[in-house]
């Protein structure tokens, strides 16, 4: 459906639904909603939940090697938060009529998408800083807006999650700030992470809306409130100065403050890379799917036992 469909093509209910959204109504699970609205939201929310869960893997990769006890505790708590976010968003998505187990089956079968940023590897400790600062920073820009979206359960989930993401963002920035005032090797480690994570972070907002197939509907329904390009710009504007404050160089020769627009101009994003990764050809796509599948199959006997035990107790 595109935004130019004439309203007399729509059913009366859909018209009323669209009007109520325009008037600022928040949609709740028991309210009537067009099937396409439900499907789009379910797609977005399940992808979001999957991203939280898959996102645990690259960061979890450094828990056993965190360089101090404080950092280890912070990192475990952070990755644990992501599990909590996953749980919370799966529950919110279930209000749209699909079980968590079904959503997870789609993920494990490789049929569902998740944020493609997690298909990049975490190679050094500095990558943990870069993920917290850049990846969670980009997520916050997205989620702060989603907290005002038209679907009640999603919007409430985002409000709660954003608070924790702010802590994640700060801990990531702090890791890099420490590295940047440390030894030469630490500084190089931090800059290297910046070089590898900057562009994929910009890709997190998705392709330009002209090429984003779902944007028009989502904007109309106030599931999205701003375009991908708007949000990307917002992220760049707030992040460049943070980088400069700790002496990190943004790896973009075309990056320049534009007095006229009051925004940073920036270079061309490599969308070929983005589509490659999204279509399964990133450095870690296969690994992430294998890790999720391994965890699931290794845990099968545990879930079976819990179910069998619960049934025995019911009978007795």
């Amino acid at each position, binding site marked *: 459906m595109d935004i130019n469909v004439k309203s007399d093509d729509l059913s009366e209910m859909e018209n009323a639904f669209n009007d109520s959204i325009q008037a600022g109504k928040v949609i709740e699970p028991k309210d009537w909603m067009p099937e396409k609205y439900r499907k789009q939201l379910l797609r977005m929310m399940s992808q979001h939940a999957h991203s939280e869960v898959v996102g645990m893997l690259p960061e979890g990769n450094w828990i056993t090697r965190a360089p101090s006890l404080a950092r280890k505790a912070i990192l475990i708590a952070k990755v644990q938060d992501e599990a909590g976010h996953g749980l919370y968003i799966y529950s919110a998505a279930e209000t749209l009529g699909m079980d968590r187990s079904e959503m997870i089956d789609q993920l494990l079968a490789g049929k569902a998408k998740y944020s493609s940023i997690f298909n990049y590897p975490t190679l050094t400790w500095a990558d943990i800083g870069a993920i917290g600062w850049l990846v969670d920073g980009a997520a916050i820009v997205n989620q702060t807006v989603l907290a005002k979206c038209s679907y009640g359960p999603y919007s409430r989930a985002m409000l709660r999650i954003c608070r924790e993401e702010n802590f994640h963002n700060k801990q990531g920035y702090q890791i890099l700030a420490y590295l940047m005032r440390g030894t030469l090797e630490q500084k190089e480690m931090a800059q290297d992470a910046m070089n590898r994570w900057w562009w994929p972070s910009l890709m997190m907002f998705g392709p330009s809306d002209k090429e984003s197939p779902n944007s028009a509907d989502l904007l109309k329904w106030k599931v999205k409130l701003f375009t991908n390009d708007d949000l990307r710009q917002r992220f760049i504007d707030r992040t460049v100065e943070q980088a400069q404050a700790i002496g990190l160089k943004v790896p973009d020769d075309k990056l320049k403050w534009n007095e006229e627009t009051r925004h940073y101009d920036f270079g061309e994003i490599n969308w070929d890379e983005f589509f490659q990764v999204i279509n399964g050809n990133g450095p870690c796509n296969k690994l992430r799917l294998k890790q999720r599948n391994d965890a699931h199959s290794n845990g099968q006997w*545990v879930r079976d*036992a819990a179910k*069998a035990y619960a049934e025995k107790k019911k009978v007795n």
Partner: protein
Amino acid sequence: MMTDLNKALIEYCLRIADNSLIHAQRISEWTGHGPILEEDIAMSNMALDLIGQSRGFYTYAAQLEGNGKTEDIYAFHRGEREFRNKLMVELPDNKDFGFTMMKLFLNGCFDYLMFRDLMKSTDETISGLAAKSIKEVTYHVRHSGEWVVRLGDGTAESHQRIQNSLNELWSFTNELFEQDSIDELLISNGIAFDKESVRNEWTKMVTEIFAKATLSIPENTTYFASGGLKGVHSEHFGFLLAEMQYLPRMYPDAVW
């Protein structure tokens, strides 16, 4: 000049701290790989509790020792022979959830009794740390104990697997109660507790759960591991430390 009593107290703190840290290190390997999201979260929680306990006891040891010692120096700049954790907690879990739960349960029951008695310590820092820790360990015992029952009385496969874990780990339970002259000195000063005095209670705690779980304690255990108190560990331990310590060892001047 440091008194013998203070030296003993430092060693005592390091034993507790090492045990919690190494246990946490193993449990934290699960984060992101649990059998279900809820358990992923629970295991991360328990790892965090144990790290918190280790930091408390390391910090107290550092304060007693002086010389600029910190929790991180103890954790990252000591070698295999200097760690005082029990062998049970360093064993690799190999992503066997039942093995992890059994370990948590067997060690947790002991820690519960330990912290309960240490709450009465004449050393106020020790009794304070024990009072904080016992709340956490109570939950660990309950949570892991419930899983031992569920797995033991679940399916035929889960019963066999958790029984195998018990058989393997039983060899490591005697070490929980080992003590030496350091314990004795501290016991005589009212600071530590007598491990032997809680053995029967521990046996009762685990036996009750095993009965519910339809598990049996192996009768023909011929080998009981020992060595943690003297820093004599399993072959697995060096790898655990190599992984945990590599960054601070590789960049000794760095601050993180």
